[in-house]
C-alpha cells in the first residue's frame, strides 16, 4: 500500500538545538501507526513538526503524494490533516457543540450537519452534553470533544499526541476502542503514546524513537515480541 504520509530525514528542534534528527517514517493509508519511546525522545516534536507547529530545519514531508514541508498548519487542515494536542485540547468556555463547530472553520465540510451526526455517533456520550461548557467535562469526555473537534474537518490523517495521558484505566480502553472505530471510518491515525504496550496491540505499525532518532520500526506485533523493545520500553514483561 502506498504511504499516505512519508517523512524523510526530518530534523527539527527549538532555538537551533535539534530535538529530532534525520527521522524517517511512513504511514500507510487506513492504518494506525504509533510512535513510542522514552521521555524526551522527541515523539511530540516529531508530531508537531509534521503539523508545522515546530520549525523544520531539514528533511521533507509528503502527504498523499504532495510535498507539504513548507506549508503552514492552517493550510494542512484543508488538505486533510488534523491534530489533537496532548493537553489544553478543548476550548473550555465554549460549549461542546461550539467546540465541534470550530473544527469546521479551517476546512468547511460540504454537509456540516451530516459530519456532525457522524462524529456524534462515534461519541454518543457527548450527545447529552452539547450545550455544556467543555471545561466542565471530565478528562475522558474532554478527550472525546478534542477528537470530535479534530474529526469535524473530515481529515484523512489524524495526529494524536498521547490521547490517554492522565486518563483512568477504564477510559484508556474506551479511547483505544474509539481509535479503532475512527480507523474503520477510513481515517489514518498516527499517534504518540506512553501506554506503549496497549497502543502497540491496536497498532498496525510502530516506530520506536530514541534520542530523536529512529531506533526500530515494525508491525505492532513484531515490536511487542522484540526482546530489545520489550526490555527497554515495555517494562520487560512478556507481551
Amino acid at each position, binding site marked *: 500500500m502506498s504511504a499516505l504520509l512519508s517523512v524523510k530525514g526530518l530534523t527539527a528542534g527549538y532555538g537551533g538545538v535539534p530535538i529530532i534528527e534525520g527521522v524517517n517514517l511512513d504511514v500507510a493509508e487506513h492504518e494506525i501507526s504509533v510512535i513510542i519511546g522514552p521521555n524526551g525522545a522527541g515523539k511530540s516534536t516529531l508530531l508537531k513538526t509534521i503539523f508545522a*507547529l515546530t520549525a523544520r530545519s531539514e528533511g521533507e514531508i509528503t502527504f498523499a503524494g504532495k510535498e507539504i514541508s513548507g506549508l503552514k*498548519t492552517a493550510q494542512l487542515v484543508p488538505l486533510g490533516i488534523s491534530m489533537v494536542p496532548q493537553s489544553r*485540547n*478543548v476550548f473550555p468556555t*465554549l460549549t461542546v457543540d461550539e467546540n465541534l463547530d470550530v*473544527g469546521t472553520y479551517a476546512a468547511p465540510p460540504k454537509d456540516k450537519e451530516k459530519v456532525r451526526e457522524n462524529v456524534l455517533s462515534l461519541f454518543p456520550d457527548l450527545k447529552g452534553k452539547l450545550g455544556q461548557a467543555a471545561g466542565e467535562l471530565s478528562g475522558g469526555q474532554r478527550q472525546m470533544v478534542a477528537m470530535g473537534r479534530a474529526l469535524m474537518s473530515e481529515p484523512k490523517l489524524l495526529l494524536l499526541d498521547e490521547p490517554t495521558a492522565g486518563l483512568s484505566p477504564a477510559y484508556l480502553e474506551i479511547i483505544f476502542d474509539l481509535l479503532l472505530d475512527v480507523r474503520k471510518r477510513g481515517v489514518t491515525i498516527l499517534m504518540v503514546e506512553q501506554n506503549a504496550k496497549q497502543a502497540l496491540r491496536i497498532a498496525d505499525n510502530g516506530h520506536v524513537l530514541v534520542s530523536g532518532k529512529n531506533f526500530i520500526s515494525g508491525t505492532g506485533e513484531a515490536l511487542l515480541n522484540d526482546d530489545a523493545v520489550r526490555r527497554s520500553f515495555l517494562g520487560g514483561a512478556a507481551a
Partner: protein
Amino acid sequence: MIDFINLYLVPGLTIGSVYALGAVGISMIFGILRFAHFAHGDLMTIGGYGVLTAVWFIPIHPLLLLPFGIALAIVSALAVDQFFYKPLRRLPTIYTVIASFGVALIFRSLAQLFWSSGNQVFTSGVRMPVVLFDTFRISELHMQVIVLTLIIAIALHFFLTRSKLGRAMRAVSDEPELAAVAGLDTERVIRWTWVIGASMAATAGVFAGMDTSMHPNLGWNLLLAMFAAAVLGGIGKPMGAIAGGLIIGIAEETATFTWLSDEPLISPSYKSAVAFFIMVALLLFRPQGLFKGRLL
C-alpha cells in the same frame, strides 16, 4: 423616588453605557491579545472627533454621522496595531502595554494638534428633556444612548455566540495555541477584534462628547472606570464588560444620592473614586470578576 430615577439612575445608566461600550473593547483585547490597552480611552476621543468633524461639514444629527467616527477609530486602531503592537506580539506583553501608553499620548497629542485643546460641542443650544407620563424627565440623548447600547449589547451577544467569526474570537481568547492547531487564522481574528473594539469605543466617545463636550482628555479621563468595568465583568468576557460598565455607572451616580441625610452620600467630586474602590475590592476578593473571566 422620581428624583432618584430622573437625576441619578438614568444619568448613571447613561455614563454606564459609555463605560460598557469602552470596556467591551478593553476586555476583548485583553482576552485575545492578552494586554491591557491603555490607549483605548484615547481611541474613544479620536472616534468622537471624527464625528465632530463630520458635523461641521454635514450639519445633521451627530448620531447619524457615527460611521465617520467609527471609520476613523477603526483605521487608527488597525494602523497602531500594524506599526506598534504587531512587531511586539512575540515579546512579553508588558512591552505592548508600555507601547499602548505611548500610543495613548500620540492619540491625545494628535487630537490637540488637529482639534485644539479646548472644549467643543456637537450642537449648541438648550435641550429640553422629554417628559414621560408627566413624571419622568429624561434627556433625549440619554434615552438614545441607553437604547442604542442595549441594541449593541444584544447584537454583540448574538455575534459572539452564533457567528463563525464570533466563535473563532472566543476560541482564540480561550486557547490561542489550540486555535492555531484547529487552523484558525489568528491574525484575522485580531484584526476583527480591533474593528469591533474601535467601533464601540468611537460610539462611546460620541455619546460621552455629546453628553458633555469634546476635549482631548475625554477618553483618558474615562479609562479607569472602563478598566474597572472590564475587571468587574471578568476579563475576556465582553458581555460581562457590558454589565460591569452599567453597574459602575449606576454605582458612581447613585453614590451621590441623599441616601442617609439631606447631604449626598459622597461628594460628587469624589464619584470616580467609586469605580476605583470597586476595582480594588474585586481584585482582592473576586479577581475573576462576575462572569468568571481570566485572572489578571
